[in-house]
Structure formats: C-alpha cells, structure tokens
C-alpha cells in the first residue's frame, strides 16, 4: 500500500501541492488528472522520492519513504517526460545499462521486452535516430525490465500512435492484474479492460 498524507509543497511563491492525501493499494491504478501546471509532475516526483515535500509524508508498506531510501527506489519504476536514454547508445545498450543497474538481465530478456513493445527492429539503432514515439517505447521497455512493483508514469501516451496507446493500456492492465500499483498522469481517459480506474483531480 502506497499512502500519501497531507502533502504540502511550494515552488517559490506558488503553493503547488496543498494537503494532498490518498492511498493506492496493490492492484489499483490511480489516474492523476488536471490542467497543465497544476503539479502533476511535481506530485509524481514526490511519490518517486526524487523530491521531498515540505510537509506530509509518503509511506510504502507502512514505512516512510524517507526512512526506506534506496530500498524504496528498487520497487519504483518511473517513466518521466524526458526519456532518460542516452542518444549516443543503442536502445539495447541503454536497456542493458539501465536495467542491469537494478538486477541481472540477459540479452534474451531485453529482446523480449523490445518485442513486447514492437520495436525489436530498432534495438541496434542509436536512440538519437529514433522517433519520439519509439523512444517512449524504449523507456517503457526499461520499465518492464526493472521489475518494479510501483509504476509511476508521466504522460505515457504522448507521442504514441493508437496501437501504441492501447499497447500501454494493456500493459498497465496486466501490471495491476498481477498485483502491481500504477500511478499515471495523463490528459486523456484511461480505460482499462475490466478495471475501475480511480481518478485524482488536481486543480
């Protein structure tokens, strides 16, 4: 269970997060919605543990994220707005490094992750040469390889074509089905097959 309590955060003079609190249980998906500039990305970064709230606390399985430190990061997979990939390295090299930093990965696992996201042909191209949508798919392949329980995705559907979008929604459904948690910031509706999606509206 991921729990956020009374999160308060200022950015300069702006009070971005005002006493936000919620819980996400295993098998649940939380859709973080709201207009631009209402703090969706800020909230996700706080939930990742990348930013610290001025007040309030995020806790995972009953323990504060601050106390868990690196132990918490192992459970979190974050796909940010920028892909987090090195343009000079190939997709395969990027994945081997990023996933290898977390746990042992074999080339076969990387291959199957690329195949899941239907970009197997791009595996040996430098990421610089890929389109924005393909880069996003590589970032999502990294998420699959990370074996994280908590998926935190910032606008995962941008730059993706319709097939890509439904692919991502399918992966999300699969992830929560198998007991994972997902927190997704998105502008469009998230319709998961046979699942209720809880919605958190920021304003």
């Amino acid at each position, binding site marked *: 269970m991921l729990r956020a309590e009374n999160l308060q955060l200022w950015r300069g003079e702006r009070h971005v997060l005002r006493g936000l609190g919620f819980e996400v249980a295993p098998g649940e998906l939380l859709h973080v919605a709201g207009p631009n500039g209402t703090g969706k990305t800020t909230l996700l970064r706080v939930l*990742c*543990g*990348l*930013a*610290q709230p001025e007040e309030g606390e995020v806790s995972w399985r009953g323990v504060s994220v601050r106390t868990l430190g*690196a*132990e918490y*990061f*192992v459970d*979190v*997979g*974050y796909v*940010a*707005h*920028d*892909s*987090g*990939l*090195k*343009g*000079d*390295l190939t997709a395969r*090299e990027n994945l081997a*490094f*990023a996933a*290898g*930093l*977390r*746990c*042992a*990965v074999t080339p076969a696992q990387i291959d199957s992750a690329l195949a899941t996201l239907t970009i197997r042909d791009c595996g040996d191209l430098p990421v610089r040469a890929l389109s924005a949508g393909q880069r996003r798919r590589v970032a999502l392949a*990294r998420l699959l390889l990370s*074996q994280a329980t908590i998926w935190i995705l910032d606008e995962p559907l941008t730059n993706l074509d319709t097939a890509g979008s439904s692919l991502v929604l399918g992966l999300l459904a699969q992830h929560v089905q198998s007991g994972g948690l997902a927190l997704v910031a998105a502008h469009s509706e998230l319709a998961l097959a046979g699942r209720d999606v809880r919605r958190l509206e920021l304003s």
Partner: protein
Amino acid sequence: MSARTGILRAMLLLAERDLRLAFRRPSQLCNPLVFFLVVTTLFPLSLSPQPSQLRDIAPGVLWVAALLSSLLALEALLKSDAEDGTLEQMLLSGQPLVVLVAAKTLAHWFVGGLPLVVISPLAAFALNVPGDAILVTAEGLLMGTLTLSFIGSVGAALTVGVRRSSVLLSLLVLPLAMPLLIFGARATDLAISGEVASGPLYLLGALLAFTATLAPFASAAAVRIGLE
C-alpha cells in the same frame, strides 16, 4: 525475480557505459589534450626559446595548462546525464549514489586526466625539462589530475541544475585546486633543480586520499539536491 545487482557490478556497468559514450564522441575526448599541447608549445614561441629560461618557466606552464585543460572537460561530467534524465534514472536504480558518482568520476578521469599524464612527458621534453624531472612531473600530474577530477565532481554536482554553468563551475573549483597547483609546480621545480621532490609529492598524495574518500559523498548529496 532475478538477483539484484551488486555495488561492484553497478560501478563497472556505469564506468563501461561512460567510456563507451566517450569513445562515441572522439572529438570531445581530444579537445583537452590538444589544448594542453597547444598551450605548452605556445610559451616557448612567445617567450625567448633559451633552454635555461624554458626550464625556469616549465613547472608553471605544465601545471597551469594541465589544470585548465582538465577544467575544460569538467562540465561534461554530470551535465549531459542530468539533461537527458539518465541521472534521475540512476538515482532511482536503488544503487548508492556515492558509488555511482565515484564510478563516474573515475571513468571521467580515465578519458580526461590519464591521457594528459601520458602525453605530459612530451610537453615537458619540449620545455627542456631533464629526464628525472619529467618522471616526477608525470607522477605529480597522475595524482593531481585525479584529485582535480574528484574536486571537480563536487563542483559539477553543485551546478547540475544550473544552465550555462561553466563560469560558475570554474569559480567554484579553481580556488580549491590551488593547493594542487602550488605543490605540483613545486615538485617539478625541485626536481628540475636536482633536489628531492618527495615532500610536495607526498602532499599531493595526501590531497588525493582526502578528496577520493570524501568528495563522492559531497557530490552525491549535491546531486540529490540538484535533481529536486
């Protein structure tokens, strides 16, 4: 679930990635080296090329050029990783950031500092430095450039969130690098005049031990703040 990656393996992975990236951009690799050689060879041209005078200015020229050319490459240490979000992903990998920063610094020195040490005999020879002193200079630079990389990693980490940070970075790092310049040039100077240079070399070694053990902690803390 497969096994979690150990610290040593993580360091190797990161160092391997950084070296691979460095060799994909060979021009960036050569810039500091060319700068070092150009500066050291311009001095004899602009001053009088008398062997005795060259020998007098050699310590200062070699060390200042080495310091400045290492400084040139420093900005790249963390900047590109911070810009494309890979630094964030590294932080989220669950590996201790201290270890990752140390691995990055070592890889950076390997492609930026070590080549300077290797070609320094050439520059020293051109400045009419005698054989023994050439060896002392290379020894001094070996420790000096590595120390500078560690000091520089703290500066680079502190300026990770700042745009166009190269001037700020120099202002932060140069004062801290002054002991290196003083003791390094002194070691070369002593060796040229035929005296024992071990005193300043020991001090360089002490500085290296000091920065190598403490700088990664400072850099890791600064990166964490910079990414917030």
